[in-house]
């Protein structure tokens, strides 16, 4: 029934690592904002959710996996609509549920096909049966599995539920959903595509990488435009899933090409980023939650100056931001560095056009990390620095002890995963070996070669110390320079929208920004208020989903014509059916 190989155990550990701090955090987060019964319900759902997550990654056969998978969607749906009075939550829940079911439907098709070929739901039996399949069938299975899991992972263009659902859930749940739940889809891809199906064609890996790059870029560009702190983090999850998939896709390619050490390294990179993202995104969501609790808003245009009011939260957020922007010496840097190295080393071993493919993938990753840095400069800078932009931010309060403990644990992990990379990689080699179905011990990685220089943190600390010594001097406090303008107010500050303006212009072909101006007039000559807004177009929603939905609803509305209300026509249907059947019966 259950399965505990290194891959499962790895995911079990990640789930527990994130869920325990989240659980501690939830006490402070929920208290005082919900009734006692609702809090109890929240804890119960949380426990069920974690249980279902644990079951997903340790399910021992395909059917059991499917049940656990559905249970996971089921529990998380109720957590998304936890603020059940809120209309946004309901919409978010619906979108989430539908997208998740579309994915699951694809998975069910894949699983049933597997059953058809193998006559069993057992992983090993299925594996044996699938290896005999013709390539075309394997390709279909791969596509079904990839997009089926992709809907849950939130790869572009199946990501649309993520920015709705993650922000609407309570923050400790967002941490769990973004940090862990979407990773179970990665687990599924590894378990089903790599381990059970076996990588059959090179284009599978290429497809994964293409979608990964797309997710990276689209995710981070949307995140840059966002001013809701939690939505921003949700989009950033789309980006990070892309980075993880770069590793996984690379691993698939190398596996097919037969470069096992590289496949192992790529998987290591992917899994390393997976655990990193779980930790720092968990941390960031918890911080966002405590900002929300402290101020009552998630709109960063209304925040600012929180660093003075919420010193702990802001420190943790800074830590998370540095990590997620892949800056040394924290953990995000290590995994992105590893991923880049995989592409570099891969390019040396392969021949021809794939070199360019890897090069472009590396460039996409570099662009992503550059944009991520910009995004988190914005997120941190606008939220925590400068002066408060509203009364809410003015009256912010630091969060309580339990929330601080929750964030603290994850903060420590961020640092540890960054500095203790050598040990982590050793463990990951075992896990990756298990993920690729090869013995990790057989393949030796020259471990030092495959990590950034270990002196780097030392160098940084040394020069940091030196700089602090040099910096010591007399300091006096004065006004900010104001070009001679007599008094600066918070309205003079740079805003999030302003910050992202160059990006909006540069990626205008994709974001399609537009502006709306609303006047409200007292009389013909006198304008009372004038509002001017900048928006971006969500092209996947607008051109893909809206059209699809419109098409389906149009069809359904036409079908209403069947039910005309006229009994004569109803009787006519029966008559006609009868006639047609009698006429066409001859074919049998």
């Amino acid at each position: 029934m259950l399965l505990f190989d290194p891959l499962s155990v790895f995911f079990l550990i990640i789930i527990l690592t994130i869920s325990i701090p989240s659980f501690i955090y939830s006490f402070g987060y929920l208290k005082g904002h919900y009734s006692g019964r609702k809090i109890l319900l929240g804890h119960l759902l949380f426990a069920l959710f974690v249980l279902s997550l644990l079951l997903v990654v340790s399910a021992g056969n395909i059917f059991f996996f499917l049940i656990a998978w559905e249970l996971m969607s089921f529990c998380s749906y109720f957590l998304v609509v936890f603020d059940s009075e809120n209309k946004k939550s309901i919409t978010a829940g619906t979108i989430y549920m539908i997208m998740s079911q579309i994915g699951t439907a694809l998975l069910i098709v894949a699983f049933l096909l597997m059953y058809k070929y193998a006559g069993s739901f057992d992983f090993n039996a299925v594996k044996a049966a699938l290896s005999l399949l013709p390539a075309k069938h394997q390709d279909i299975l791969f596509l079904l599995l990839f997009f089926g899991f992709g809907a849950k992972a939130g790869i572009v263009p199946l990501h649309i539920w993520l920015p709705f659902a993650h922000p609407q859930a309570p923050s400790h749940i967002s941490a769990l959903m973004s940090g862990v739940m979407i990773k179970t889809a990665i687990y599924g891809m590894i378990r089903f595509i790599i381990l059970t199906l076996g990588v059959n064609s090179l284009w599978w890996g290429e497809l994964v990488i293409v979608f990964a790059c797309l997710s990276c870029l689209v995710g981070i560009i949307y995140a840059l435009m966002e001013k809701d702190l939690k939505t921003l983090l949700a989009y950033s999850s789309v980006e990070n899933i892309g980075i993880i998939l770069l590793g996984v896709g690379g691993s698939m390619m190398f596996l097919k090409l037969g470069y096992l050490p590289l496949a192992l390294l790529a998987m290591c990179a992917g899994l390393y980023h997976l655990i990193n993202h779980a930790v720092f995104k968990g941390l960031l969501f918890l911080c966002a939650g405590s900002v929300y609790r402290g101020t009552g808003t998630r709109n960063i245009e209304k925040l600012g100056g929180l660093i003075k009011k919420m010193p702990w939260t802001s420190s943790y957020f800074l830590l998370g931001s540095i990590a997620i922007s892949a800056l040394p010496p924290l953990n995000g840097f290590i995994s992105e560095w590893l991923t880049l190295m995989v592409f570099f080393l891969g390019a040396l071993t392969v021949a021809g056009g794939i070199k360019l493919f890897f090069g472009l993938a590396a460039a996409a990753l570099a662009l992503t990390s550059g944009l991520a840095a910009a995004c988190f400069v914005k997120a941190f800078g606008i939220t925590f620095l400068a002066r408060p932009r509203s009364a809410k931010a003015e009256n912010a309060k630091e969060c309580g002890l339990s929330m601080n403990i929750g964030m603290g644990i994850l903060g420590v992990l961020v640092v540890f995963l960054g500095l203790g990379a050598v040990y982590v990689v050793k463990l990951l080699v075992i896990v990756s070996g298990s993920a690729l179905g090869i013995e990790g011990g057989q393949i030796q990685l020259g471990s030092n070669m495959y990590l950034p220089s270990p002196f780097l943190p030392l160098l940084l600390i040394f020069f940091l110390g030196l700089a602090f010594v040099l910096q010591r001097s007399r300091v006096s406090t004065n006004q900010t320079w104001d070009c001679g303008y007599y008094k600066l107010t918070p309205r003079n500050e740079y805003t999030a929208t302003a910050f992202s303006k160059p990006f909006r212009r540069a990626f205008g072909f994709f974001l399609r920004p537009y502006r709306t101006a609303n006047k409200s007039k007292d009389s013909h000559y006198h304008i009372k208020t004038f509002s001017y807004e900048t928006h971006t177009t969500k092209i996947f929603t607008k051109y893909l989903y809206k059209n699809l939905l419109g098409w389906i609803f149009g069809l359904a509305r036409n079908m209403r014509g069947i039910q005309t209300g006229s009994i004569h026509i109803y009787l006519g249907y029966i008559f006609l059916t009868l006639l047609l059947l009698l006429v066409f019966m001859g074919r049998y």
Partner: protein
Amino acid sequence: MELTIILAVPLILSAAGLFVKKNEGLANLNCLGYLLSLIFSISAGYRFLSAPGSLSVDGLSLFFVFTISTVAFAAALYSGGYIEHEISRNLITKEKARLYYPLFNLFVFAMLLVTTVNNLGLMWVAIEITTLVSAFLVGFHNNKNSVEAAWKYIIICSVGITLALLGTILFSYAFVFSTGAKSLNWTELFSAASRLNPEIVKIAFIFIIIGYGTKAGLAPMHTWLPDAHSQALSPISALLSGVLLKTSIYAILRYGLIADKCLGGSYVSHLLILFGMLSLLVSAGLVLVQKDIKRLLAYSSIEHIGIIALGFGIGGPIGTYGALLHMFNHAVTKSLLFFGVGNIVNVYGSRNIRSIRGALRALPFSGLMVTAGIFALAGFPPFSIFFSEMMILLAAFSRGYAVLGCAMLFFIVIIFGAVIYYFSQVLFGEKPKNIVPYKEPLPGRLAFLFLLVFILVSGWAVPVLLDGLIRSVLILKGI
């Protein structure tokens, strides 16, 4: 013995309606009576399993008897509170409410009769009685909408059933044609099935599937169903959706067994698949654009009848097992939903989805039950429908109907989306100020819990009785 009691109970109860003056008394009597009949249907089932020959009926009949008894018992529990509520809202008068119970009992009696008689002619008669009795229950409120629904119901179903009568006669003609003897007994027809003239049987089965299919709600003969289900009193909607449709499926199955044995091959299954797919298509389209919450559930019944037809059409041990199990699962789940929605509609005084908000606040218990029911209906584990749907899908894929399975999944996902979209708005959100929270009476709550137990259990572990009966049906089908 047990069967006699089971059949006698509703008859006695409806006669009791003439003597007992108080509605409460009638309601309580009904509960007791159907508890008795449920117990006897269980004991009959067990007796059949231990000694198949000891009863005059076979496993298929007992399966349906059990299903009907289960839902009827729940409906009886629920009816008391519901009728009281209707009276308190001045929708019906006390005197009229007294009419409800005899009609209810006659309705159940007719359905039980359908599944226990061996004579196909009598079966036809019993099905016609269900129509006639339930037409009054559909038109109970006697307003424009309900009378319209009742008229359509009775006319369309009568036409359907007339065609079924023609089918019945053609079957008997086929029997006469090939054996020279005259009979309408199912057992005799079944044992002579392989000798029947295939040409006649083919035509006869078309009449049967269209005729009884009309009553079963298979598209495109389903047209009466959304009207009748949405206008009927909620416990009756539960009975209509939960079991009445299935009794017609039962009839189709009976003929299907003969036709299958006679024709072999895939004639019967292809017809079933055709109508199953059409039903799915129609319900998927119309569920998306519903405004009336009970109508939405009615269309969902068409969907599930379609799935059941597909299950039987796909066939094989897993498909048939899944279809039968689905029949039971859908019966309990849909009944629970109609009960819950009935309470919601009564409290809000409207069936319009847009005007119902925050039902979880207004009716904490019913709301919770509806929430569970919706996910059960949509085919989520750990609820039972998930398992039966998976069985049918599994059969579809492993028997070479992969495309069919994909199409079925597609429609299921669309309907799921629509159901979640509409019901999340109904259940969540803020409760309107003028709505007074409603506390369900104890028997009403028991009805929910009773059904919920089945919904939760019969997926993970099919109850021994059901399992045994379904297996006996498989043996009957020779698979």
